[in-house]
């Protein structure tokens, strides 16, 4: 794979869910090594976009390329692709009958033939990277929301994936835990040479660590640029989202079921 090629590329993508079009005409290129924030109000289709990147959702039109190749449709090929993608889910998805260390060890035990002592050492390193080495034996129910999120992050990093996807990583976290998680996202991205896509509606916590920001609203990408450009934007749609104004071009109420998104003006 060309090292300079974009790690994610979407061209003319349309995404449908539940019989309605959620996103249309999505063109997006994510270069390697960047932290990209995908911002937008709740229900705007951010998680749908993420589902297309992981192959959970097949695009109704257009092409989605991840790690330099189109997202495959065959389950076996898809599982192979996913070994190169770390995903931090909004709900963590930690297996509740496994300890923190066992959760982190799970992908290593499944996908590698490394001996047990090496896996144990890697698990300790991953937990250390997220500042939770002392919580290795704790079960998910014994962890706070922020700690559980970090264990899930360590697990997502277990196979050293070149691409990390974060789905609402700050939901349910207090400001301190949010700061810790976003600092980790930036630090891990730089030290491990990753590319990170952070899907969130927490603008103020995310923009300081992001190299590039995209705003999704009304069924499409309404802004793409640096964090500074986003902050300086005078577009009424972007301003409404950034300033949290109840009235504006973004309707507060979700579209009814079966409705399609309006055509871009």
């Amino acid at each position: 794979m060309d090292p300079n090629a974009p790690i994610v590329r979407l061209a003319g993508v349309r995404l449908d869910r539940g019989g309605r079009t959620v996103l249309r005409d999505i063109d997006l290129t994510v270069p390697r090594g960047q932290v990209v924030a995908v911002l937008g109000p709740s229900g705007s289709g951010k998680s749908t976009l993420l589902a297309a990147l992981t192959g959970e959702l097949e695009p109704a039109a257009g092409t989605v390329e991840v790690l330099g190749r189109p997202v495959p449709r065959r389950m076996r090929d898809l599982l192979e692709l996913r070994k190169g993608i770390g995903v931090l889910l909004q709900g963590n998805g930690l297996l509740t009958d496994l300890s923190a260390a066992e959760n982190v060890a799970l992908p290593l035990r499944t996908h590698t033939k490394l001996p047990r002592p090496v896996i144990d050492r890697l698990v300790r390193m991953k937990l250390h990277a997220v500042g939770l080495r002392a919580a290795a034996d704790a079960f998910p129910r014994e962890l706070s929301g922020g700690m559980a999120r970090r264990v899930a992050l360590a697990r997502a990093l277990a196979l050293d994936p070149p691409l990390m996807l974060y789905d609402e990583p700050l939901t349910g976290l207090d400001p301190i835990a949010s700061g810790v998680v976003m600092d980790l996202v930036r630090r891990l991205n730089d030290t491990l040479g990753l590319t990170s896509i952070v899907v969130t509606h927490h603008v103020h916590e995310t923009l300081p660590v992001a190299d590039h920001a995209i705003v999704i609203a009304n069924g499409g990408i309404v802004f793409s640029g640096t964090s500074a450009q986003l902050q300086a934007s005078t577009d009424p749609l972007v301003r409404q989202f950034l300033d949290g104004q109840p009235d504006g071009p973004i309707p507060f109420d979700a579209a009814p079921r079966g409705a399609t998104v309006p055509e871009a003006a």
Partner: protein
Amino acid sequence: MPFVAATRSVGRAGLFTLSVLRASKPTADFLRELVREIYKIGARSLPIIAVGGAFVGLSVTLLGYRALDTYGAANQVSAMLGLGLYRELGPVLTALLFIGRAGSSIAAELGLMRATDQITALGLMAIDPVGKAVAPRFWAAVLCVPLLTAFFCSLAISASYFEAVHVIGVESGVFWQVLKDSVDFGKDFAMAFAKAAVFGAVAALVAAYVGFHAEPTIEGTSVATTKAVVNASLLVLMFNFVMSALLFR
């Protein structure tokens, strides 16, 4: 179109069964999960199986004694118990108790795994969720229900012996001899375990299917648990009739 929906549902269940069988690979991880599930759904079901078995043995003995005594054949009470137990009651009642105790927990666990993103997370880690979460539970049920049936029958016969010999007054030697003469090892005893294994597979597949495909909400989990118990129980009763008709001619 209920017929179309029912056909589609049967097709999906068939594909799910195939995916469970395909995902059953005897890796170290799988065997570790299997042992854990055998403990969770097998060993921990022992108390209710023991109590259930003992009371069934007592009831059948009392019923049989009253009926047989009319014809002066009270000594044959262990024959009635043995045949009834191994051919029908043992596998069926064990499976029904197993569904209530373990089938519901399989459906609830998988439903909660769905609701809390654990199944999604497994798929995103390139780990087959069916292989990790369903296959060990399925094989644990296939192995455990025959063993639990053996335990159920042992307890039922022990309780029956106590009642027949010490309360009713049947000769101890007669009780065992009649039981031994009436129950055939191949036709009755072995078939009970074959039936039990099929019932275990049916119970686990139904519970796992509805739990795995539950709506990812608390209500979805509760609906899946109810469905698992009702559907699995009815299917076990239907399979029992079909197997009895085919096996015991």
